[in-house]
């Protein structure tokens, strides 16, 4: 997903280890030690930092920058980060995005890690906990999984608009057994879906859907799907449920009395909707909000760092900025020119002028599919020399390729002056700074580059109305579908029209091999190395996420994934010794 929704919806990647670690850190039972308290250790121990014993009762006011967009988080206008965070405490999922950037297994919902029992056709079996129920006492069963499948596969209900049908559209069936507590998801013959853990991340109650419309017909499904979008949920399948909602002001959640997992600590979670970022710090100081994960800027970070009694942490997010070349441009078609441009650009200099002003850990990104926190991250960019501010190397590449006027007024080997147009989103100061720095760099190569803003990024990309452009993608631990979507030669999102048959073959092999995640990831890195050598997309940096919480609150911790910090609300609580 591009920048607009801050982080990709749906998430997750793997790791049974994360599940074990999360289980181990479950709140009140842990022995609090000084080094576990606060966010300082979150970089090293993201799953266990700020752990401690909590007392029953109390409330928290959590800052949210946007209002609830729709009650159906995966409806046509769903996929919003703030909505997902606020609804996180009531919509059950099988996997969620964990603070270590991996998939966390929701061990409250399922008995054990779901198993791929067959690869042809791909079959996954889920075992739901017998005690798992909706807030009205109705058991959570295969019917709820089946409802998600049927509403989102675009065939059973073509008019049920969904923000993503990915994975559901290659499922053949979702059936239940064992009183509905065992779910068997079977994929279509010949289809491999390596990102299967992204499925069933948002379960809506099938029995409530049934009351709104007949689930066996497209019209009935549409009715219930729309009803979920328009109706404030009175139901919950998680630790909290909605008590009240005032549009544009606040959403109040209270413990779900039918919750079968670890007992909730807080009596109330209040999501306060504050759309003005500059209000964040005064409201924290004034006690009007207690925690939040706002989009950071230098003023906010500086002010928060000077506050006493708050935990705060800047960490790398899933969103990453990059500069793309349009390979259909008559100049940029030439790899030598792209190589020179990418080698000359000073990525560290761009970082220093943008996110580096308030995030000292920011560093150049070296991969197009994985962020440094991923176990599969491999720097494939550095060895190409891209982003190193290597002006001499850039000039040599141009001279060797027969360009003239290098450093003064660059001309192609055919004698045509090189002129380029760099585009960036209007009003984005970081991207404007990036454009200016690139312009200054290219001037030293003799390239006359103009800067032009756009307020319709999608149209600009879609129509190829750019030579060079800076924007962001949001990484997702479901990296196989993302890689194919962004870099596949036939993909609509391969906006710069990069084609490398060898890389494309390896990319497809990686996706096919994806049920063995490590093997698939290795193949993706091989394809990525080929792309880096083609100087098509220059990764710049991860955008930072910011988490702040009053120090009195324990077991609340930063989570830069699309799930956000509300993945463990039942564990949040006031320090047992706090007043």
């Amino acid at each position, binding site marked *: 997903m591009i920048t607009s929704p801050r982080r990709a919806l749906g998430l997750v990647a793997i790791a049974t280890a994360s599940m074990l670690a999360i289980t181990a850190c479950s709140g009140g039972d842990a022995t609090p030690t000084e080094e576990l308290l606060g966010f300082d250790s979150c970089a090293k121990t993201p799953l266990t930092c700020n752990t401690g014993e909590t007392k029953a009762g109390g409330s928290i006011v959590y800052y949210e920058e946007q209002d609830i967009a729709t009650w159906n988080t995966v409806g046509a206008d769903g996929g919003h980060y703030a909505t997902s965070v606020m609804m996180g405490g009531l919509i059950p999922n099988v996997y969620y995005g964990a603070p270590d950037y991996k998939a966390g297994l929701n061990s409250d919902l399922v008995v054990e890690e779901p198993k791929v029992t067959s690869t042809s056709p791909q079959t996954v079996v889920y075992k739901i906990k017998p005690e798992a129920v909706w807030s009205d006492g109705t058991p959570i069963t295969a019917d709820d999984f089946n409802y998600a499948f049927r509403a989102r596969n675009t065939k059973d209900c073509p008019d049920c608009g969904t923000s993503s049908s990915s994975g559901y559209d290659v499922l053949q069936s979702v059936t239940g057994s064992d009183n509905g507590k065992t779910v068997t998801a079977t994929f279509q013959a010949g289809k491999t879906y390596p990102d299967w853990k992204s499925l069933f991340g948002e379960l809506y109650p099938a029995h409530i859907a049934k009351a709104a419309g007949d689930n066996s017909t497209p019209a009935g499904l549409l009715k219930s799907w729309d009803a979920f979008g328009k109706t404030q949920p009175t139901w919950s399948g998680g630790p909290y449920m909605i008590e009240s909602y005032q549009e544009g002001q606040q959403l109040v959640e209270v413990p779900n009395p039918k919750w079968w997992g670890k007992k909730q600590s807080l009596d109330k979670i209040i999501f306060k909707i504050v759309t003005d970022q500059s*209000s964040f710090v005064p409201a924290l100081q004034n006690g009007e909000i207690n925690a939040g994960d706002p989009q950071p800027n230098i003023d906010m970070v500086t002010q928060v760092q000077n506050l006493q009694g708050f935990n705060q942490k800047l960490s790398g997010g899933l969103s990453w900025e990059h500069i793309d070349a349009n390979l259909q441009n008559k100049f940029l078609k030439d790899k030598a020119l792209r190589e020179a441009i990418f080698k000359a650009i000073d990525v560290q200099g761009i970082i220093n002028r943008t996110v580096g002003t308030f995030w000292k850990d920011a560093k150049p990104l070296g991969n197009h599919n994985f962020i440094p926190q991923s176990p599969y991250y491999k720097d494939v960019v550095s060895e190409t020399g891209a982003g190193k501010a290597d002006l001499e190397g850039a000039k040599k590449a141009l001279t060797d390729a027969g360009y003239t006027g290098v450093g003064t007024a660059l001309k192609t080997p055919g004698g045509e002056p090189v002129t380029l147009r760099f585009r960036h989103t209007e009003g984005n100061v970081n991207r404007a700074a990036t454009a200016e720095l690139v312009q200054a760099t290219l001037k030293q190569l003799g390239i006359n580059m103009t800067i032009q803003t756009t307020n319709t990024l999608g149209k600009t990309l879609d129509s190829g109305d750019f030579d060079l452009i800076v924007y962001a993608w949001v990484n997702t631990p479901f990296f196989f579908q993302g890689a194919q979507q962004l870099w596949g030669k036939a993909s609509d999102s391969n906006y710069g029209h990069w084609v490398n048959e060898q890389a494309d073959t390896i990319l497809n092999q990686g996706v096919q091999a994806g049920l063995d995640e490590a093997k698939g990831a290795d193949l993706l890195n091989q394809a990525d190395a080929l792309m880096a050598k083609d100087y098509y997309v220059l990764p710049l940096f991860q955008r930072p996420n910011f988490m702040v919480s009053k120090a009195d609150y324990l077991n609340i911790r930063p989570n830069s994934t699309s799930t956000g910090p509300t993945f463990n609300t039942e564990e949040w609580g006031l320090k047992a010794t706090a007043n």
Partner: protein
Amino acid sequence: MFAYVVRRLAAAIPVLIVASFLAYALVALSGDPLEPLKLRNPPAPPRTIELETQRLGLDHNIFVRYWDWLWGVLHGDFGQSVQSNYDIGANLGRSATVTLRLVLVAMLLALVLAILTGVLSAVRQYSRFDYATTFAGFVFLAMPSFWIAIVLKDLAVRYNRASGTTVFYTIGETSQNYESMSAFGKFGDVVGHLVLPTIALALISYAAWSRYQRAAMLEVLNSDYVRLARAKGLTWRKVLVRHVLRTALIPLVTVTALDIAGILGGAVITETVFNWNGLGRMLLNGVARADTNAVAAWLLLAGLVVIAFNVIADSLYAVLDPRIRHE
């Protein structure tokens, strides 16, 4: 008088239509509301994009879209928002109520302060009081409203922290536990939330209005008929209240009515800084989401308010100035 008001209102209709079309077209052409959906990764199904395109009427040209919207408005339907749950008509009403509360209280405060200081400054021209209020007026005139708001918030937070109480609030219209408060508690809570944005908004208008009031008072005080009134033996208080102030209020009435658009603009900023869910947020969210129908509805309301206040100002002229009434 009635016919005059009707004529003024009738003349405003074409202005409103042209203005609303221009606003509608500008917003519609400024961005693609479906961009977040189109740029998702993994991608949204094509059918979803098609359904949303149809729902928002984006498959029609701008004239058809505007006509559909206008026809709907005339029938009480403000059209579909980019956010399918967002009821534009209901939100317009609710937001207007919130903003109106802020604007009316701020205007009242600004008017009272402006008239008081304007009159006293004129009566005691070149006194210390006159110099002090002149200085304050120019300071507030020079300050951007958001800056005043931020300074006030900072002072309020400092006061709360120093006193160990929460007298002033910096975000929202009420506290999260407002519903569970007693009637007295609710009143205190509303006032605690209202005081800072009201002062911030009032100071901007006060600055200009006090200068107008002072100038108008000075002009009337030096006029022949005031001297005549005094020569006829009327008391100074009677002259001041019945002859000077009444005449000197006329320019202020004009300015106040014409300033309504500016005050609404100030309210948009003040509301944003203090996180009120009023017309300001409705406009900003609408623009951010490229929500053409919502923004057009907002602008239509703003246009109506401006026209209404201009008509009110004209009517008040007649009340204050018998010459106009007799014409």
